[in-house]
C-alpha cells in the first residue's frame, strides 16, 4: 500500500534527525502521538503538534511517560497508527507498557532518543546505553524489534520501516536514536507518496462470528479488529487464549509466550537490516550502530590506510540480534571490534554469537560525546595482531 500523500512532505529538506523522524511517522501514516517533553527528543512531537492540523490527526500532551505509553495503545485499538517519543528517564517509565504492548500485540512505535544515564544523566548529550533496556526492560519473556538510524535521512526512512514492522508483526518497535543523530542537521530527501510503501493494519476480514482476536492464520500474527466495529474482543495483559480471555494455565502461557517470541524469531531474516562492507577473510570486523557507526567508519578507513584488513558491519536492526551473520563472519575473521556509547552492551551479544570462534573487543565509552576515531583504531590494531 502507498503512503497517504497528506502526510508526505515530498521534497529535499535540511532537517535534523528529530524532525525527520516526525516526517517519517507522518509518512508512515501515524495520526496520533502522545507526548511528554524530554530532552533530546521533544522536537519530534513539537513538529508533530504543529503538523497535524494540516495533515489531520491528534497530538496530546500527556501528564507523564506512563500515560503517554498507554494512551498511544488506546489510540491503536481505536484504529490509529500511533507512536510516542522519549529519552532515558521516560523510557524507563514506559517499560511496563512496552511489555503490555508486547503481550497484547499492539502495533506501535516507541522512539527513544538516547542520552547519557543513568537517571537524569546527560540530558543534552549522547549515549547508546538503552540498548539492553530496549530488549529486556519489561518483565517476562517477549520479543521486540529495535532499529537504529545513523543519519537524519535514516530517521525518516527507518521510522517508516519501524511502523511497517510494527504493523506486520503486531509488535512494539523501539526506534533507538541518539542525541547526536537526533540533533544533527543534514539533507533529507522525502520521496513522493507513491514511492513510499506502508504496511496497513492487519485488519480482519472475517465475519464477526468467525473472528478470534488472538487466533492466527499460521504465521503467528493475529489479525486485528478495532474497538467499536462489532467484533467481540477482549484485550488484557493477563495470559490469554485465542479468544483474548484470561486463561492462566501453564499450557496457555507456554503457547502464548512461545508464539510472541517465534513470530519474530521465525522472520528474523526479513527483519534483519545490515550495512555491510566485508570482502574476504578480514582480520577484523568492526560492528557498530547509530552515531558510533559514523565515527567507526573513519577508524576503519584509517586502519585500511595502514594496510589492515578491516570489514564493517553496521547493525540497523539491533533486535532481534543478527546472530546468524555474526556466526558466519566469526568463521572467517580473527576478531570483532565493537565500539558503542556505553560500557559494553551489544558487545555481549557479539561475543555470544561469535561463540569463541573469533575474539571480541569492546571499545566502551560512557557517553557525553562520541568516540575519537583514534580510540577505535587503537583497538582495531590490537585486535588484528
Amino acid at each position, binding site marked *: 500500500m502507498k503512503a497517504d500523500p497528506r502526510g508526505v512532505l515530498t521534497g529535499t529538506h535540511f532537517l535534523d534527525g528529530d524532525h525527520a523522524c516526525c516526517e517519517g511517522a507522518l509518512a508512515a501514516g501515524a495520526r496520533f502521538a502522545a*507526548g*511528554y517533553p524530554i530532552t533530546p527528543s*521533544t522536537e519530534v512531537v*513539537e513538529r508533530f*503538534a*504543529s503538523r497535524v492540523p494540516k495533515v489531520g490527526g491528534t497530538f496530546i*500532551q500527556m501528564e507523564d511517560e506512563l500515560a503517554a505509553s498507554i494512551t498511544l495503545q488506546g489510540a491503536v485499538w481505536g484504529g490509529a497508527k500511533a507512536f510516542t517519543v522519549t529519552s532515558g*528517564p521516560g523510557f524507563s517509565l514506559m517499560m511496563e507498557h512496552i511489555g503490555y504492548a508486547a503481550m497484547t500485540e499492539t502495533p506501535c512505535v516507541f522512539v527513544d532518543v538516547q542520552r547519557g544515564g543513568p*537517571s537524569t544523566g546527560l540530558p543534552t548529550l549522547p549515549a547508546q546505553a538503552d540498548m539492553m533496556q530496549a530488549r529486556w526492560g519489561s518483565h517476562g519473556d517477549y520479543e521486540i524489534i529495535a532499529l537504529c538510524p545513523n543519519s537524519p535521512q535514516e530517521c525518516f526512512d527507518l521510522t517508516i520501516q519501524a511502523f511497517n514492522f510494527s504493523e506486520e508483526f503486531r509488535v512494539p518497535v523501539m526506534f533507538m536514536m541518539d542525541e547526536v543523530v537526533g540533533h544533527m542537521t543534514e539533507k533529507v530527501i522525502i520521496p513522493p507518496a507513491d514511492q513510499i510503501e506502508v504496511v496497513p493494519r492487519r485488519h480482519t476480514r472475517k465475519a464477526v462470528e468467525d473472528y478470534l482476536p488472538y487466533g492466527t492464520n499460521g504465521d503467528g500474527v493475529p489479525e486485528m479488529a478495532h474497538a467499536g466495529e462489532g467484533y467481540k474482543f477482549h484485550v488484557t495483559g493477563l495470559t490469554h487464549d485465542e479468544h483474548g480471555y484470561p486463561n492462566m494455565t501453564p499450557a496457555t502461557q507456554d503457547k502464548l509466550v512461545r508464539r510472541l517470541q517465534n513470530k519474530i524469531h521465525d522472520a528474523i531474516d526479513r527483519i534483519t537490516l545490515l550495512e555491510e562492507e566485508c570482502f574476504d577473510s578480514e582480520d577484523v570486523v568492526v560492528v557498530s550502530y547509530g552515531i558510533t557507526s559514523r565515527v567507526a567508519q573513519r577508524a576503519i578507513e584509517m586502519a585500511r590506510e595502514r594496510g589492515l584488513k578491516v570489514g564493517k558491519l553496521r547493525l540497523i536492526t539491533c533486535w532481534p540480534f543478527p546472530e546468524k551473520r555474526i556466526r558466519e563472519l566469526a568463521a572467517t575473521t580473527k576478531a570483532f571490534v565493537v565500539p558503542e556509547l556505553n560500557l559494553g552492551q551489544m558487545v555481549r551479544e557479539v561475543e555470544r554469537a561469535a561463540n569463541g570462534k573469533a575474539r571480541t573487543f569492546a571499545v566502551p565509552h560512557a557517553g557525553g560525546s562520541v568516540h575519537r576515531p583514534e580510540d577505535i583504531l587503537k583497538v582495531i590494531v590490537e585486535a588484528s595482531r
Partner: protein
Amino acid sequence: MATYIQIDPTQKLDPFKSVKKLPLEEYFTSGHRTCQGCESALVMKMMAKAAGPRSIILGSTGCMYVANTTYYSTSWVVPWMHTQLGSSGSAALGTSAALKVLMRKGKIKNEPINVIAFCGDGGGADMGVGAISATLTHAEYNSLILMYDNESYANTDIQLSGSTPWGANTTFSSPGKVKRIMHRRWKKNMAGMMAAGHPECKYVATICMSYGLHGMNSIRKALAIGGPTFIHSLDPCPKGWDYDPYLSHEMGELAVNSGVWPLYEVENGLLRLTGRTEQIAAGKIRRVPVRDYLLKQGRFAHFTNDDIDYFQSKIDDMWEKWLIPGVIPFRRDVEADTPPSS
C-alpha cells in the same frame, strides 16, 4: 476520639511584620543561571529566606533544578537534593520520615527541621500529582510541598503542561492558519484540589511573589503548622509567557488583580481569601480586565477579541458562578460552554 498520630514540633516562624524586618541572611544566593526576570528564582530566594537555615530543600527536575545547579555552581546554602520529575511529594515524605526516626533513635539532635520539596507545574500538576496527594495524607510527617507554576515545561523549551492556561502558545500548541487555538484545556486547580481532597493537610495556600511578604508569610505558616502542607505559587516567566523581563513583577500583580490568580489560604479547613484578592471579593477594588493581563504576553498574541472575551467570561464565572468563588468550581446550574471558533 483519642489521637494516635504524633505530630512533631515545628519551628516557631512568626510572620514577618514588614519588608524592613526581613533577615539579611540569604540561603539561596548568587550562582544560579536562571533567565533575566525569572520569578521562580525569586520564589526560591524568598522561600529559603522565609524558612531559614535549619531547612532541607528538595527539588524535582525542572528549571529550578537545572538552572540552579549546573556547571559546578549552586546557589543553595542549605542542604539540597535533586529528586526525579514526579517525586517531590515522595521525597518530602521520605526525608521527613527519616529525620523523625533519626531523632527518635538519638542519632541526630532532636530539633525541628523544615523539609521543603518544590516542583514545577510539570512535576507537580502533571507527573507528580499522585505523589503530592499521597504525601498530604500522611499527617505525621512535617513537610511543605511548594509548586512553582510558570505554566509550562519551561526547562525543555516551553511545552504545555496541565497548568498552561487556555489558548496559550507553547511549542506543543503553536497557533497557525488552520487552527488558531491549539490548547483547549483549562488550567488545573491544584490548590483547590489539594485543599478539598486531603483532610489531613492543615494548610494550603496560593501565593504570587509579586506580593513577596504575603508569600513568605504563607510559607512560614505552612512550615509552622505541622504535618504535610501545600503551596501553589504563580510565577510569571519572561521566556514562556513572552514579555520583557522587566515586567515580571507587574505581570504577577496583573494576574492577581485581574482575578485570574486568586490568593487564598485554607488553614485547618477554614478558607480565607488573602491579600488583594480579599479586597476584590469585598468589593473594595475592582478586578482589572483580563485583556490588560493577556495582551502584555506574547503567548496570547494570536488571541482575537472573541478569545479575550471568552477568557474574561471564564474568569467572571470563577467569581460569580462558582459556589466558592475563585477556589472551588462547583456550580448551581449547568450552562453551555461556547468557546470561540478556532
